[in-house]
């Protein structure tokens, strides 16, 4: 089996699994959890394109998520736009903003880039919080309409599940394609050595800004979907903590792996349910996971799974050989 064929097969199996899962979860609250996992998967993939492929850190990605949510929320509640149109506008505006700030910001490297994106995240949080007349301030923006297609309104968990996951699958497909293309290879080249990449003729400066904009655009779509499924948004959901949570998702799942992003998003969405007993100390567990992950499994959980898979595979092979 060629690599491409295998990639397609894995995606089809994943799609099938996503589509039939609700049949086993009718009316259960886990469907609601899966809706949030879908949104977080989109965000993790968006950040992974930047962090995992191009090797550029962003500690302010919650800001693009919030920007998408707020632009969409404000356009639909205050100017009665159609949610779909609002989603497209919010995605384009966030992507455009990322494109503009990307040029100066992405000139920075390492800690300086981390600081700049962190600052951007905090600035956006303050804007969400302080422009009370527009965003409703700290007590939030309510009454955001649900998305609908003609008479089909996405206002329950089952409908939302399909809405979010169909778009998530589209984002996954796009990202897998991107990562296997010439651009994906160029990004990985930048990741390994920017100087070498430029010597080989990769326009690193523009490419980094472009992937930053794509990443922001996907985050904004996720934000818009979040706003329309929750019908309420408040700044607390788009703060610094959430930016860190996103980075954790990507690293725990596996840098540079699309399915790893799904794994990381799923774990970080479900984990708080189990860590509730620890209250404020849950952050310690996240920190510990990050440390252990980078020390012992730098490729993330997905690489761990792959290792286990290979071990089992080779054992079966060995057995069949000895049997023969």
């Amino acid at each position, binding site marked *: 089996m060629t690599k491409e064929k295998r990639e397609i097969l894995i995606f089809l199996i994943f799609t099938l699994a996503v589509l039939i899962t609700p049949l086993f979860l009718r*009316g*259960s*609250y886990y469907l*609601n*959890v899966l809706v*949030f996992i879908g949104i977080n998967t989109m965000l993790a993939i968006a950040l992974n394109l930047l962090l995992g492929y191009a090797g550029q850190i962003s500690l302010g990605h919650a800001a693009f998520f919030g920007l998408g949510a707020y632009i969409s929320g404000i356009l639909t509640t205050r100017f009665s736009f159609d949610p779909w149109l609002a989603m497209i506008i919010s995605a384009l505006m966030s992507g455009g903003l990322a494109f503009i700030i990307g040029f100066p910001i992405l000139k920075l490297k390492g800690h300086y880039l981390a600081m700049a994106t962190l600052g951007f995240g905090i600035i956006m949080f303050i804007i969400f*919080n*302080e422009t*009370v007349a527009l965003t409703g*301030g*700290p*007590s*939030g923006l*309510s009454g955001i309409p649900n998305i609908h297609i003609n008479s089909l309104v996405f*206002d329950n*968990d089952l409908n939302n599940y399909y809405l979010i996951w169909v778009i998530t699958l589209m984002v996954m497909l796009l990202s897998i394609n991107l990562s296997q293309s010439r651009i994906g290879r160029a990004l990985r080249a930048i990741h390994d050595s920017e100087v070498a990449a430029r010597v080989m003729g990769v326009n690193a400066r523009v490419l980094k800004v472009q992937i930053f904009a794509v990443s922001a655009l996907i985050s904004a779509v996720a934000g818009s979907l*979040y706003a329309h499924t*929750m*019908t*309420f*948004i*408040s700044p*607390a*959901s788009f703060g610094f903590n959430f930016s860190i949570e996103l980075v954790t998702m990507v690293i725990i799942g596996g840098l540079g792996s699309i399915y790893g992003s799904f794994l990381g998003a799923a774990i970080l969405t479900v984990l*708080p*349910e189990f860590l*509730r007993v620890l*209250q*404020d100390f849950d952050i310690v567990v996240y920190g510990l996971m990050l440390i252990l992950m980078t020390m012992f499994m730098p490729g993330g959980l997905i690489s761990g799974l792959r290792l286990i898979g290979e071990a089992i595979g080779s054992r079966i092979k060995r057995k069949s050989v000895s049997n023969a």
Partner: protein
Amino acid sequence: MLKQMFRVVISVLFVVLMAGSAVAAPPIKIGALFAVSGPASFLGEPERNTAKMMVDEINKAGGIKGRQLELIVIDTQGDATKAVQGVNKLIKDDKVAAIIGPSTTGDTMAVIPVVEKAEIPMVSCAAGVKITDPTKKWVFKTAQNDALAVPKIFDHMKKQKINKIAILTVSDGFGSSGREQLVLHAKQFGIQIISDETYGPKDTDMTAQLTKIRGSEAQAIVCWGTNPGPAVVARNVKQLGITLPLYMSHGVSSKKFIELADDGAEGIILPSGRVVVADQLSKSDPQKKALLNYVENYKKHYNVEGDHFGGHAYDAIMLIKGAIERGGDSPAAIRDQLEKTVKYAGIGGTFSYSAQDHAGLTSDAFVLVQIKNKGWTLLK
């Protein structure tokens, strides 16, 4: 012989089991959403403690109409996303009959669409006016509106012939709602707001804003926020030697504030629920009994004095208890009976709900208190 003994054991077991199942009708499940951790934990923690204490007590006294209560607490961390996930779990997984909380206005607004759709009654412990205005069918609240606190302060100012004031509000949900009410009521009272300053929830120094206020013609300062910000303001006022009267909101009516503000707290006037001055109330006050009972009980369990915020959870539990006693324990019955609550004298005030009013309190819910000798004094 052995067979006979076996038979006896079995029949005894059978009887015990039957008796057990007869007593243990399934408990009535009450869900609770509190911001136990995170920046709003000063609300969520006493609320959770109080709710647990009350449910234990109700169960020890034989439950409600013979049925035990089961409290399921979920920590929202003051984050709307977690609140919505939590409320979905409570409704779909735990199948609760009613919900108390959330602690903050933001969390409450986030979960309202969910409870309205699932038709589960919810008694919020947050103060925001928009929670019950406009009235939502399934949503009630126990915390006093900011709209009731502001006139208390302005009344007092009028008596002192104060006409020009400076306001200093925190930039979070509580502060922005308070600021709105201050601006709104100032016009009605003919009070002029000369200086309108804000500060961030985590700021540790407000001398810049206060220096500006000192230079203005303001005759008094109103600070609107929850701990720890106002304590910093109080200390800064003292350090800067500002002698203007300082008014604060009900957001600081806990012992913690006096500890934090130290000497700066002396002389500050604020509207508060009656809980902090329970022992100074006249005997005819309808709330006195509930208040003293709550304060003592809380102290016994948790070694600190019960405050205003825990009181919101106390009222929520007692209101739901009353509703179940009068009607059934289905969500619809609880809602209908909640709406018929008349003159329940609790911690936050005397509640009377109606189809139009799901907030249930009048300006009578607040009294003005002054901080003297590190304690509370009722201003008459």
